Each structure stands twice: as structure tokens, then as C-alpha cells.
């Protein structure tokens, strides 16, 4: 079995993705460094979310989706036949656009992933639950109601719970698909602070529609347009001196 150890750089080479006859991603090459925040930006339908979902193989669930290319995370070929997709997803967590807490208690939500991977001892689970909620800086808000249903929380709390739920699987990479687009500015701020903290140990890739968000949190930014990776580099460079005319037009709000 391929273990995810050591440097957790994400490397994609010659990536093409098709939905049936439609080519949604065109020859994308990218190297995403570990323990940084990398933002994917671009107009709707440019393929940035689709590209993100390659890295935890969520596209496997989409019927008629065909992927070409070479994808490595921490040196592991994630589309290799030997690669256990469930283990991949344990190591490469994902936070979705719409908070999706399970209809069960806060505790059971967090304990879901550890239980999936065979941890049943209560003391151990208790510790993971507290640790994960602390890392998602929501522990103080929920510590007195761990047994209450997670659906009773506000949208912003639910999203941080979902982050904590991913962290409970101790992932090396966290993929975030527009995690704040359904949230208010205060919740958004909390999640951005959180990412700043998490990137000390975890490689974070975030898809965002919000360019201010990219400038605030991302070390690197990739601009996608019509299934192509137009430009990729340090966030400062992308936003101050873009090399490609299309990038400049997008970030100055002239299309998209």
C-alpha cells in the first residue's frame, strides 16, 4: 500500500478531463507546494472545482467522467490501481461549498472518520473530537452541547464543524471548494483565520470566487479560464503584475 508520508506537494501533469465528449480541462500542468494555501480562481464553469476534485478522486462518482494525466500527492500516484481511494480521501480531506453536517450529534459527526478507520476506544475518540474541534476553533462554542444535533448550529458553525470533521481524519491535504460562499462576513473571517493556522501542518487548496479572499489568504494563485490554466504564480505577482492579458482583464473585473 502506498503511504502518504514526507513532502506533500501536489503535482499534476498533462491533465485532461472529459464529461462524455465535452472536454472540461485542457492539458493542465501544476505543482502545488506543501504547507501553503493555493487558491484557484476563475469565472463560473472554468473547471476550477472539477480540477480540485481530481485530488481526492471525487470525480470517480461522476458518471461519464474520464481523466487523463499523471497525478501525485506526496509522491503517490493517486490514480494508480494499487492506490486505495478510501485511504486517499482520508489523507486528502474536502470541505464543500454548502455545509453538509450529518444529521447526528456534533460528537458523532467528528467521530465518523476515526470510526471509519477502526478507532472505537472512547477515550481515544474523545481526544480526537476535542482536538479537531479546537483546531477548527469551534470547541468553545460547542463543548457543552457535543451530544446535540449538528443541524441545530448556524451555517457558519456548521461549516467549521465540517472542517473539524475533515481534520479528525488527520489529513495531509485539505481541499476547500468555495467554503465561504454561503456564509456571512464574520464566519468567513473566522474560516480565513483558521486556514492561516492550519497551513502550518496541512497543504490547503481553495477554490474561490472572491478575489479579495485569494489576496488575503493565498500564497499562490492559479487562474483558470475555459478549462485552461492561464496563469499560476505567487499571489502578489498574479494580482500586481499578471503576465497574461486575460488574467489582467479578469482581476480588474473587466469580464467573468
Amino acid at each position, binding site marked *: 500500500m502506498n503511504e502518504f508520508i514526507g513532502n506533500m506537494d501536489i503535482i499534476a501533469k498533462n491533465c485532461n478531463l472529459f464529461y462524455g465528449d465535452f472536454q472540461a480541462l485542457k492539458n493542465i500542468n501544476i505543482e502545488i507546494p506543501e504547507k501553503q494555501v493555493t487558491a484557484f480562481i476563475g469565472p463560473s464553469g472554468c473547471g476550477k472545482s472539477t480540477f480540485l476534485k481530481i485530488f481526492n478522486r471525487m470525480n470517480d462518482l461522476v458518471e461519464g467522467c474520464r481523466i487523463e494525466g499523471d497525478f501525485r500527492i506526496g509522491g503517490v500516484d493517486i490514480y494508480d490501481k494499487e492506490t486505495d481511494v478510501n485511504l486517499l480521501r482520508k489523507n486528502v480531506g474536502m470541505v464543500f461549498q454548502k455545509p453538509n453536517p450529518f*444529521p447526528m450529534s456534533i460528537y458523532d459527526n467528528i467521530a465518523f472518520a476515526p470510526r471509519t478507520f477502526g478507532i472505537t476506544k472512547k477515550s481515544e475518540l474523545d481526544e480526537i473530537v476535542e482536538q479537531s474541534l479546537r483546531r477548527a476553533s469551534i470547541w468553545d462554542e460547542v463543548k457543552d452541547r457535543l451530544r446535540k444535533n449538528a443541524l441545530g448550529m448556524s451555517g457558519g458553525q456548521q461549516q467549521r464543524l465540517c472542517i473539524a470533521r475533515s481534520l479528525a481524519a488527520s489529513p495531509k491535504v485539505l481541499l476547500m471548494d468555495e467554503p465561504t460562499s454561503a456564509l456571512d462576513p464574520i464566519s468567513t473571517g473566522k474560516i480565513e483565520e483558521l486556514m492561516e493556522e492550519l497551513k502550518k501542518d496541512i497543504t490547503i487548496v481553495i477554490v474561490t470566487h472572491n478575489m479579495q479572499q485569494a489576496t488575503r489568504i493565498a500564497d499562490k494563485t492559479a487562474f483558470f479560464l475555459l478549462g485552461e490554466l492561464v496563469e499560476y504564480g505567487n499571489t502578489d505577482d498574479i494580482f500586481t503584475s499578471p503576465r497574461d492579458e486575460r488574467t489582467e482583464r479578469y482581476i480588474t473585473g473587466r469580464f467573468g
Partner: protein
Amino acid sequence: MKRLYSILKYICIIALVISLISLLAVVAYVLINGVDKLSFDLLFGDYTDSPSIFPAFIGTLQLVGIASIIAVPIGIASAIFLVEYTGNKGRFVKIVQVATETLAGIPSIVYGLFGYLIFVVAFGWGYSILGGGITLAIMILPTIVRSTQESLLSVQNGLREGSYALGASKVRTIFKIVLPSCAGGIVTSIILAIGRVVSESAVLILTIGMVVNKVPESLMSPGASLALDIYYFASHGYPAEASATAVVLLVFVIFLNLLASFVGKMIKKSTYGDTK
């Protein structure tokens, strides 16, 4: 124009009154004729001098047991396959869909005839509780498949994706996330299907015979059910006893309906409730 609207309104009110009156008339008729015949002997007697519905009560319970033990697991498993494994799309699912819808609409006497030809004649079991129970299971199977499918489809895809994204397998996702999220709907539909078993008579006339005076010795014995007792009493000169049995059956079905909504709400509360 305004006049037309008020005429429409009155037509609707009249229609509502007619449907309420006919329902009340049935219940009132049954109660008036049946209640004073509800005696200990009728309910629990051993059918020597006076008629008793006790054998039929046991028969009904056995039929419910057999039909649900067979139909519930098969029905739920079929629905899981259709929704979770084929994505509820494609030619195969379409064919199954048409088949279940057609089967759900077939008159029950046709199921009875099938059960008669298979279990009574071809298998040589004669009239038996088991043959009747299996026939009833076949009868309610399409309903259970359809309603479980609807319940599974009502579970948001975000929950499945969330589970997969945490590294859970398909089986774990189905059993720990999807089924608990819609258990209320599934249980409700099972109880309503049991209601159909309890009130069925046409199937049973052809499959379990109509031995009303003896508790079935085994599942291979003939027997009766409460619904059959009504037919038997009414056609053998005991109209009051028939009405009394109808009261019992009515109470039973009302109880099942209340149970269905109660259990549905309880399960919903345990998954979604307690949100403070």
C-alpha cells in the same frame, strides 16, 4: 367571473361534505351494529357455542409476520440497489420502475389467483397460512420498493459526498449515513404496507382457505384473518358479529396508521430533532 368563483367554492364544499358523510356513515354503521356484540367470547372465546375471532386474530398476526419478514428486507435491499448502485438511472431501472408501478396497480385477486395456482396447486401445500403470507409479501413488495426508493432519493447528495470525502466506503455510507437519514420514511411505509396486509381479503380466500373456528396448528394449516371473518360471518347469517369484527379491524388499522406517523416522527426527531 366572481360568481363563477363562488360557485366553484360551493361545489368543493359540497364534495367535501359528501366524502365526509360517506366515511362517517360507514364508521357509524359498523359501530352501531357491532359494538354491543363485542364480547369477551367473541374476542377471546374458543369458538365452541358462539363464534369467536380469536383464531382469525392469530392468523392475521402470522400473516403480517410472514409477509413482513419476506417483503421488508427484500424490498429495502432492492431499493438500495436501484438508488445507490445504479444511480436510479438507465434502461434497467426504467424497466423495474414500470414493473413495480404495474404490479402495485394489479387487483389483489390476481395475486390471490397466482398464490392459489403456485402454493395451493403446484406446490401441493393446500390452503396454508404460509402460502397466503408469501402471496401477501409478493403483493406488498412493489409498494415497499417504490416508497423506499423515494425515501432514499430524498437524502441530499451532499451527505453522501461528505461521507465519501472522509474515506468511508459505499457500504458504510449507505448504512451509517443514508439509511439513518431516511429511516423515518421507510418505517412509515412499512407500517402502511402492513395495514394493507391486515385489510386484505381477496388474496386470502384463494390461499389460506377460510377455517374460522380453529387456531392454525402450524404455518402449513389453513386459517382465517379478521377481514375474512367479516366475509364469513356476513355470508353465514351473523351480520352483527361481522360488524363487531369490522370494529376490531377498524381499530387495528387506525392504530397502525397512528403508529406509522408516531414512529416516523420519533425517528425523524432522533436524527434531526433535539437541535437546541
